[in-house]
C-alpha cells in the first residue's frame, strides 16, 4: 500500500505543472470542424484543444468518424467546414512535426526495421550521421534492439507496431497522432505496449491525440477523454482524467481508475452500438 501512496504523492506534485503547461498553449486546435462526403455528414462542430504536453484520448462508437478526424488533423484528408490548426497554423496538408502511428502499422515490407524507422528522417532530409545515431536510439527505446536487419514479415504484430512507433518517434514530432495503434495486437501485448508507450511519453512528453476503441485504454492514456457521439457525431462529452502521473501498471488498480472507466462507459452505454465496445471488465 505504501508504494501506491508514494505514487499518488509524487504525482500530486508533478500534476499541477503538467496542467498549467498544457493550458498555456494548444498544439492542436479544431474550430467547428466538420467533414462531409457528399450528403453524408461524418462529424460536425468539433471543437477540440490539445495542449503541448497533453494526451487526449478520443473515443466513440464505430463509424463515428474518430479516425477520419485524426486523418483530417494529420492533413491526409481535407475538412469540409471549420478549421484545424496545429501550432496556430491551418492544416491543409501533412505537416512536419506531426507523426501518425497507424492501426495497420503501415510498415514497408521490403524495408528492414532499420530502414523503416529511418524512413521519416530520410524524407525529412536528415544527415547520414544523424540517421546513424538516432535510428538505433529509437529502435532501442521501443525494445527492438537486435532486430535492425529483420523484415516486418518476420515479426509479430506487437513487434511490428513497436517499429511503427519508433518510426514516428524518430522524427521527434511535436504532435503524435495515434490511430487505434494497439487494436490489431492481442490483449497481453496491448497492455505491455500501452505501459511502454506511457513510460516513453514520460521521458519525452509531447502532444498526443489517441484514438481508441477501448475505454480502459482511453482512461489509462488520456489526461482527458473526449467522447464523440451522435449522427453526425460531435463532441458529446469531455471527461477530465485526474489520475496521477506517471501512469503505470498500478494506475489500473486505483479505485479512481475504475470510477472514471464507469463514467466513460456510462456516457457511451446508451448508444445502440455499445456492443461494439471493449470494456474488458473482466480484468
Amino acid at each position, binding site marked *: 500500500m505504501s508504494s501506491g501512496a508514494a505514487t499518488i504523492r509524487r504525482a500530486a506534485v508533478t500534476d499541477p505543472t503538467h496542467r498549467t503547461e498544457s493550458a498555456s498553449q494548444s498544439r492542436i486546435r479544431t474550430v467547428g470542424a466538420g467533414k462531409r462526403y457528399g450528403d453524408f455528414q461524418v462529424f460536425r462542430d468539433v471543437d477540440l484543444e490539445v495542449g503541448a504536453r497533453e494526451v487526449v484520448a478520443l473515443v466513440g462508437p464505430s463509424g463515428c468518424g474518430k479516425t477520419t478526424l485524426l486523418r483530417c488533423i*494529420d492533413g*491526409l484528408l481535407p475538412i469540409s467546414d471549420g478549421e484545424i490548426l496545429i501550432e496556430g497554423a491551418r492544416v491543409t*496538408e*501533412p*505537416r*512536419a512535426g506531426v*507523426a*501518425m502511428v*497507424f492501426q*495497420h502499422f*503501415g510498415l*514497408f*515490407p*521490403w524495408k528492414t526495421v532499420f530502414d523503416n524507422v529511418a*524512413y*521519416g528522417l530520410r*524524407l*525529412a532530409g536528415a544527415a547520414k550521421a544523424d540517421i546513424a545515431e538516432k535510428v538505433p536510439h529509437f529502435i532501442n527505446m521501443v525494445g527492438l534492439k537486435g532486430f535492425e536487419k529483420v*523484415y*516486418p*514479415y*518476420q515479426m509479430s504484430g506487437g513487434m511490428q507496431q513497436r517499429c511503427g512507433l519508433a518510426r514516428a518517434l524518430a*522524427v521527434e514530432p511535436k504532435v503524435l497522432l495515434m490511430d487505434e495503434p494497439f487494436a490489431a495486437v492481442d490483449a497481453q501485448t496491448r497492455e505491455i505496449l500501452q505501459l511502454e508507450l506511457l513510460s516513453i511519453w514520460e521521458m519525452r512528453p509531447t502532444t498526443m491525440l489517441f484514438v481508441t476503441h477501448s475505454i480502459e485504454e482511453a482512461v489509462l492514456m488520456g489526461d482527458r477523454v473526449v467522447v464523440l457521439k451522435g449522427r453526425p457525431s460531435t463532441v458529446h462529452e469531455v471527461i477530465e482524467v485526474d489520475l496521477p502521473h506517471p501512469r503505470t501498471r498500478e494506475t489500473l488498480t486505483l479505485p479512481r481508475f475504475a470510477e472514471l472507466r464507469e463514467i466513460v462507459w456510462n456516457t457511451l452505454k446508451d448508444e445502440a452500438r455499445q456492443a461494439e465496445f471493449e470494456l474488458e471488465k473482466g480484468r
Partner: protein
Amino acid sequence: MATGESWRIRYLPPAISLIAGAALWQWVGSQTSAAFLSTFSATVARLVALTVSGEVVTALAESMTLFFTGLVIAILIAVPLGVMLARFRVLRVASETYIMMLYATPMAALIPFILSLMGFGFTPKVVVVVLFAMFPILYNTIEGARSVKPELIEVARSYRSSEWGLWRDVLIPYTLPFALTGIRQGIGRGLVGMIAAEFYLSASGIGRLITVSERDFDTAGVLASIIIISILGAALMAVGRRLENHFAAWRGLGR
C-alpha cells in the same frame, strides 16, 4: 539418409527421362530418312562441330545482342509506363483498350508491316523483340502497381513524401516482383520475337543458322540450333525466376 533420398528424387527421374528421350530420338531417327529427322547422336555431333568451328559462338553473340537490346528497351518502356498507368486512372482508362488489343495480337502479324516501314537492319529487328517482350511486362506491372496498398501510400503522404519519393520508396519496390513475373514471360516471348525477326527480317544469329542449315538439308544442324535456343530459353527463365524470388522475399514467400 534424408539428403540421399532427396537427391535421388531431385535428379534421378529427370536424368532417366532425358536418357529415355534421347534413346527414343535415336531409334526414331535411325528409322527415318536423314533429310526428315537426324538421329540424336548425329545432332550432338553437329552441335559439337558447329561449336568448334565457332559458328555457334558468332550466331549466339548476334542473337543475344539483339535479344538483350530488345528486352532492356521493353523493360525500360513497360515498367515506368505500367506504374504510371496504374497511378493515373485517366491514362489507364484511356489506353486500356489499346493495351489489351496489342497484348492479344500475335506480334508476328506485325512483322511485314515493320518490314515495309523500316526495312532491313538491326533497328527493325529490335522493334520486333520489343513488341514481343513488352506487353506481358506492361500488363503485369499495371496489375502489380494497381494492387499497392492504399495504406502504404497514406503512410508516405503522412511523412510528406514527394511524388518521386513515393515512386522510389513505395510504388517501384512494391511493383518489382510483379514486373519480374512479367519480365519472365517477356523473356519467353522475346526469344520468339528474336527468332521471328531473324527469319523474316535480315537473317542473322541463330535464326540464320537454322535457315541456312535447312536450305542445305542439314537436319542435324537445324535440330542442333533448336537445342541451343531451348537451352538458352530455359536458362534465361531460370535466371528470371531467381530474380523474382529474390525481390519477392519480403512477401514472406522466400522462406
